[in-house]
């Protein structure tokens, strides 16, 4: 497996690129996509080879049933990794799962994995956690790889220069059976953000800002590359947060060219290439960047200085703005006035109101968007030496056991406890509220997750999406609060 990088690259140039295109330049996305095309169908999709397949309990059982009906095995079980995360409790994981439907779904994944020889990291396993948190942790996520999962936030893995995207259950079955999917090649978009981020502005804010400008359908049909100083300066955790949210502007996925930060994050991880294979991999990975004169179907530029801490006020992730800005007037928007008003009515907000000081009931820190160690560090930096507001229920859910271990090892757990917070066990939790972690009807939650759709966090729940810093500030005051207030106090 180790000596084939150059073979693969040269093969791809011969087999998938027409010979008349000798002088063409390629985007990062082109390079990775084209090198995985097994066959191009005339007036149809490409047959794309998938290097890594991540599986969880909710979108896989019907796919395994399909294999059974067709009487076919999993073609490459060693390329598939299964975890339990969506439908799991975040307390008392050592006890049997109470909800019989959830328990049954977890059992199905365990049985299916065993039957087909797939690695399964179930509840309580040291490598268990949210699928998009544990992939990078284990070194499964690699530059130049194609990665799919029956979950739209698979775009997270693009932070490493992989092509990663969410698929439906029919496609899960397809990948299990053939290690391929059939997809038309998306168009390419590059989003450049240059300059330096202001004080208190996090990767989550960058992503929510871009989505607010593009809308939830602004990148539909595209695969996005994030480029520019802001992403170069960003940590791997931050890049994962940004790529994670690509789907929220409709993009199939997002990716960032790998660099020294990427390589040092991966080196030494369990499934990462080792020794000679590592050197070969590095030679290939260093070619994974868009050529200087590569042309994108669409290119968009933003200035880092225009971004402030963000918060959403509506029922899709595009309905957000700077925390000091008010809720926009319907007339100022392009079309969709009735949908806009329906959304504000659900939230019980009015046009033109300020977001600052709106009372909140719950705070959720976690999810594949913001459930990594850096997010807990940020949250702790605000709550340190302060106390949780009495009217706030806070659910702090690490993305994995490894994140949980780091929270303890770095002393963050002590800070949280002193401030009146508890830590729960890993899982998707209140992000989609399949388990008991449901925000009650009518209640407001400041959440670091990815979707503020009606009822997303529980029937009737009202979600305000924000960064871990904004969530921490709200947890302390019990209302929407600009976290820079606390941060400036400390600087002074």
């Amino acid at each position, binding site marked *: 497996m180790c000596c084939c990088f150059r073979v693969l690259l040269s093969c791809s140039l011969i087999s998938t690129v027409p010979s008349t295109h000798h002088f063409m330049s390629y985007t990062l996305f082109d390079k990775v996509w084209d090198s995985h095309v097994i066959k191009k169908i005339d007036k149809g999709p490409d047959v794309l080879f998938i290097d890594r397949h991540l599986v969880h309990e909710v979108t896989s059982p019907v796919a395994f049933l399909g294999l059974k009906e067709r009487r076919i095995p999993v073609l490459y079980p060693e390329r598939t990794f299964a975890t339990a995360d969506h439908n799991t409790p975040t307390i008392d994981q050592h006890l049997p799962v109470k909800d019989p439907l959830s328990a049954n779904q977890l059992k199905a994944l365990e049985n299916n994995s065993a039957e087909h020889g797939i690695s399964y990291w179930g509840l309580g396993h040291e490598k268990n956690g949210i699928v998009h948190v544990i992939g990078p942790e284990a070194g499964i996520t690699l530059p130049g790889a194609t990665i799919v999962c*029956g979950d*739209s936030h698979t775009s997270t893995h693009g932070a490493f220069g992989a092509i990663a995207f969410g698929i439906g*259950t*029919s496609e899960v079955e397809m990948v299990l059976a053939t290690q391929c999917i059939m997809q038309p090649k998306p168009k390419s978009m590059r989003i450049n953000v240059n300059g330096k981020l202001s004080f208190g502005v996090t990767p989550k804010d960058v992503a929510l800002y871009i989505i607010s400008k593009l809308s939830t*359908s602004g990148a*539909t049909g595209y695969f996005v590359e994030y480029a520019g100083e802001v992403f170069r300066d960003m940590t791997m955790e931050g890049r994962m947060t940004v790529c994670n949210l690509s789907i929220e502007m409709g993009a199939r996925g997002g990716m960032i060219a790998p660099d020294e930060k990427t390589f040092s994050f991966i080196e030494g991880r369990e499934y990462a290439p080792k020794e000679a294979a590592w050197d070969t991999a590095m030679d290939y990975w260093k070619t994974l960047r868009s050529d200087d004169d590569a042309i994108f179907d669409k290119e968009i530029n933003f200035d880092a200085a225009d971004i402030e801490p963000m918060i959403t006020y509506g029922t899709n992730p595009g309905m957000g703005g700077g925390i000091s800005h008010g809720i926009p007037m319907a007339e100022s928007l392009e079309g*969709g006035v009735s949908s806009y008003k329906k959304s504000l009515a659900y939230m019980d907000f009015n046009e033109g109101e300020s977001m600052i000081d709106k009372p909140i009931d719950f705070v959720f820190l976690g999810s594949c968007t913001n459930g990594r160690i850096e997010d807990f560090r940020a949250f702790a930096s605000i709550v340190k030496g302060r106390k949780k507001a009495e009217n706030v229920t806070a659910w702090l859910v690490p993305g994995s056991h490894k994140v949980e271990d780091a929270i303890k090892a770095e002393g963050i757990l002590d800070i949280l406890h002193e401030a009146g917070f508890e830590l729960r066990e890993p899982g998707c939790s209140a992000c*989609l509220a399949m388990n008991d972690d449901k925000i009650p009807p009518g209640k407001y939650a400041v959440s670091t997750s990815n979707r503020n759709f009606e009822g997303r966090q529980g029937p009737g729940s009202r979600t305000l999406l924000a960064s871990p810093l904004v969530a921490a500030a709200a947890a302390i005051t019990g209302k929407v609060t600009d976290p820079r207030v606390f941060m400036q106090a400390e600087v002074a």
Partner: protein
Amino acid sequence: MAYDKFNILESSAVPLPIENVDTDQIIPARFLKATERKDFDKNLFRDWRYNTDGTPKDDFPLNNPKYSGKILVGGKNFGSGSSREHAAWAIYDYGFRCVVSSFFADIFRNNCLNIGVLPVQVSPEFLKKMFSDIEKKSDSKFEVNLPNQRISIVSSGISEGFEITDYKKENLLNGFDDIDYLLNLKGDIKDFAANAPF
């Protein structure tokens, strides 16, 4: 799972003139706990369709006896959000074979095509005409002609073409799926995998 072939569909339609209908609305996550494809149609648009006590909300189009048919007409950016194929299953199993909108989210569109629901993307103008036609006469008929890739408003004869790849069109006309196709490529796939770096 096999689905019924799609050729020419003439039917009345159910209007849902709301933008950005996400898959969490089409089927909320708490109804995704099954391990087989069964009964998802019962929870189609659950929280828009039913009150918390389980009684139907009379003003929701699916509960309005005026509206019926195998075509669902939705506002712009239909099917955004989660990749859950359960959303497409719920729509198919409820009895819809076609969803019309002026814009679809990518994953939802793929999921529909993979299970036998035809997503028909029309211009915003045509979508408006469909909504107003249904408003005037709730049992207005529409013809979705897959071989000709055309959708028509039967009463007025106004029609518009729609796009679909030849490959997916063949699949829908014959009830095939991608796995049927891919299994025939197994030799090529194995050759490729033998040289894959990861």
